């Protein structure tokens, strides 16, 4: 590709300068996390422990059961589900939700425990 001769060479210099500026800015932005924390004690990406995973799955199960209950109520109220079918379905769904909520109790956030211990000792 032949460059247009009549275009001012200042434009080319300007383009190069701006391009270089852009590259420098990009590198700076990308390096920022390392520049901000040159030695980070905790560079580990917060993953999830199996306990957290279990709790999350229980939370989802509970929410799913509660959502299904809500929808069942709505469908019943709008007349889509007959009374008999409603009676048949609502029991198991309530049980499922209750089960999930019960299972969540022992997995309550441990943050509370140390504080209580301190209080007890005090």
């Amino acid at each position, binding site marked *: *590709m*032949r*460059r*247009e001769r009549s*275009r001012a060479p200042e*434009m*080319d210099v*300007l*383009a*190069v300068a*701006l*391009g*270089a500026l*852009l*590259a420098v*800015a*990009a590198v700076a*932005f*990308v*390096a*920022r*996390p*390392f520049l901000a*924390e040159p030695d*980070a004690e*905790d*560079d*580990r*990406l*917060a*993953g*999830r422990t199996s306990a*957290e*995973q279990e*709790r*999350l*799955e229980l*939370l*989802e199960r509970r*929410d*799913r059961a509660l*959502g*299904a209950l809500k*929808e*069942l109520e*709505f*469908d019943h*109220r*709008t*007349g*889509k*589900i*007959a009374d008999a*079918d409603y009676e048949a*379905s609502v029991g198991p769904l309530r049980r499922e939700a209750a089960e999930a909520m019960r299972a969540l109790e022992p997995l309550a*956030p*441990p*943050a509370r425990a140390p504080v209580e211990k301190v209080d007890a000792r005090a």
Partner: protein
Amino acid sequence: MPGLGSAALVVAFGLVAYAAVAGGYAAHRGRRRLLESATNALFASFASVLLAALVLLAALARHDFSFAYVASHTSRELPLGYTLASFWSGQEGSLLLWLLVLTGIGSAAVALNRRLIRTVIPWTVPILGAIASFFALLLVFVASPFATQVAPADGAGMNPSLQNPYMLAHPPLLYLGYVGLTIPFAFAMGALASGRADERWIIATRRWTLASWTFLGFAILLGAKWAYEEVGWGGWYAWDPVENAALMPWLVATAYLHSVMVQEKKNMLRVWNAVLVAGAFCLSLFGTFLTRSGVINSIHSFTQSSIGAWFLGFIAVVAAVSTALIIYRLPLLRSRTRLESLVSREAAFLYNNLFLVAFALTVLWGVIYPLVSVAVRGVAETVGAPYYDFFAVAFGLPLVLLMGIGPLVAWRRASLRAVGRSLLWPAGAALIVGILLLLAGAGSSPAGLVGYTFAAFVLAAIALEFVRGTRARHALGGGSWPAAFTSLVGRNRRRYGGYVVHAAIVLLLVGAVGIGGFGTTQEGKLTQGQSVEVGDYTLTYLGSEQRRAANSQELRARLAVSRGGEDLGTVLAGKNRYFAEQQTSNEVAIRSDWLRAEDLFVIADQFNPDGSVFVKVIVNPLVNLIWLAGLLFVAGALITLWPDAREQRRLARRFDEEGALARA
């Protein structure tokens, strides 16, 4: 300034490549700062690509023909709007648009969800980076929009058929749809890669998916309207490979939107959803490839686009990696919940998926059939409209029926008796409508009659849903009926927004059947004063006129229209001759009757030296319902998309519960 544009693209390429590689390593090894760095790279790449886009826009605006791209797609007399829109009318520009939208919404999606998803984002960033790297690679090494040349005096101009408001809007909307499907894909694959079966990414990306699907659907209809008015053969959809290119991902995305609901509520169909979302994304890449590379048309030996092979390779890589990832995570994806009954809402969603995917596959088969037949028989064969029409009816009719039945069936297990009772009123209404239509003569198209009956069924079912819901809401909360109605819709946006979208699709069907099954055509030569009769209309040729416009010479035939003796005014149909492009285009006359929703479509084919004109006149019944359906479609989608404060609060509460754990 082309140097700046090229530099910006090179920097962008470096950034997204870094985001892909460094992000992948950071996700794999769990390095926080490196991931943040990769995420910054993704954000920065958007800025860089935006700069490149602005350089190109500026060059277009000032008619800088030293840019090869500007010279080959615009001319000095092209109006400014179209000049700027030629950004995406050529291959290099449209690739740049792809990359711009990808880095833009990719960055937004990551930024907005960084806090919410701790385990998926680390993998989403490198995936988005990798996809962006492909486009950046093409832009830097294969198809640069910043190639320069000795500036000619004037540019080559834009194809006159593209100089139309619809064509201004169509590509950006289409790309928002195509590229938008990258978000659910990247998040889904990210979820797979991270090995966490957490469902929150679905909720987080739900609106992105919906929005992209809406843009895609609307863009398809916009393209159809353009074809109807500009290409002007009387029809609205020609099953052309380029049209099908956008339809296929839309169909699969529709299937995904439905089955992902089942995953959210029942924790089922996880493998299927992963396959669907990967399929939708691959099809959107394929769609871009089809439209841009001309490879299907290239069996007619056109200049093979330089990027065709690259795209094909990329699609193959994406498909292979997605498949490998799904297989690798299969044990994790296998759901413990089983389909309990073939008569349940889950099953209805499944059937809906089947038909949608089957239809998408038949369209795909039709599109690639020329290539297959070349390989197998040695001669390329193309399938025509009858093939597509057959399957559109075969799969479309059951789908419409499902639209009516699905919402009336309960989750998990529905007794046939309960379903039958719910269906009674809508079915009755449908039967009455069917009989009335049959008596009115709609039996001339049996498929059309069945389609209309089903449409009546679905519309009645939807109306019933609204009535029952409002009644229940009113019984609960009291107040006025309108208040109950708005409160109902406001509290159940997904459900009722979805019903509105279904109604829009049904409306589309009614319009499509009208124009496809019940139209009339008449053609012939008319001398001055002579008339022709089409359907109810009588057209009389009054004479021809000439006019000079900005960049063309316009020749028109004026015809007087009347119906049943009533004078309906005149229409002008004819041709434009464009100076710069040395080309003639047809300018059809469309007279829309909004009360009947039908169009009188006039094509002035030929102006003879003796003063006579050859015209082709078509009556398209109900065609305007198609465009109305488009608007209703967007309205319904907006209702579904609208942020729900109650839902947000509920979600925030759940994340707090989980977050409290993390802070421990």
